């Protein structure tokens, strides 16, 4: 059996508890999505008219940023498996920077909306818009804190190919943040007939 097969067969070293945490988060968002869809279908005209006011381009750019950051995290884990701590740290830092760009992008989007007088109280669509993207943003910030801690610890040489659980767990969390946005973007910015 070659080394690469072993690597592929091995389960990621993510603790059960962290998976429960991540899955609970995903279920919470699934509930957000379903309530959004139900409320939207009850009053489609308001939702469609309000949706048209969103800046789809910024949303699409944010999708790309998060996908890119997920890729960096994948590369970080791969580098650590080769015991290349230096490279791992660089990739973690890159993923962190992507998160920062995401936040700046979101801040621009929110401030433009607020300047147009659109707030959480404007109508039900914007209530969902601010809350779903806001809670997702909180997850991005949380994920960035995790990435920062992982980065610092990697620089200090705390992790290696034999001690990879923390990096893999943080990675799975960050991928979750990414995959939630893959659904949030079409749901809030695009869908609706």
């Amino acid at each position, binding site marked *: 059996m070659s080394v690469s097969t072993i690597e592929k067969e091995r389960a990621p070293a*993510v603790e059960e508890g962290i998976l429960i945490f991540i899955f609970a988060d995903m279920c919470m968002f699934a509930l957000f999505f379903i309530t959004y869809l139900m409320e939207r279908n009850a009053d489609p005209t308001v939702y*469609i008219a309000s949706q048209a006011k969103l800046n789809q381009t910024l949303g699409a750019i944010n999708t790309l940023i998060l996908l890119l950051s997920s890729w960096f995290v994948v590369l970080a884990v791969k580098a650590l498996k080769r015991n290349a701590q230096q490279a791992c740290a660089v990739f973690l830092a890159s993923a962190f920077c992507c998160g920062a760009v995401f936040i700046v992008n979101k801040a621009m989007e929110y401030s433009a909306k607020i300047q147009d007088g659109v707030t959480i109280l404007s109508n039900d669509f914007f209530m969902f818009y601010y809350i779903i993207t806001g809670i997702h943003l909180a997850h991005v910030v949380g994920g960035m804190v995790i990435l920062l801690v992982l980065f610092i610890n990697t620089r200090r040489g705390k992790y290696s190919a034999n001690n990879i659980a923390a990096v893999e767990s943080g990675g799975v969390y960050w*991928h979750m943040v990414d995959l939630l946005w893959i659904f949030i973007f079409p749901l809030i910015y695009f869908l609706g007939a």
Partner: protein
Amino acid sequence: MALFRDNKNLVAMGLLLATIVSWFTFEEFHGYVIASVVIILISTVKVKAVMSSFMEIEAMPGPWKYMMNGWLAVVCLSMLIAELM
């Protein structure tokens, strides 16, 4: 889903490409049911790719693989149903 798991870099590039292409293709088609359905399906495939390739859910212990796939099915179906109703 071995394809997703073995070529993580390829999957990542595919995801970025799918995002760009679907964005330029569907930007003008808001409100068309067909466009919405296609976008939902593309998003579902993208999430499936992230789950299988990046999160390696197939290798996770116990029922996690089924729970994650179940979550994906529920979200995808509820979006489709809401769109087609």
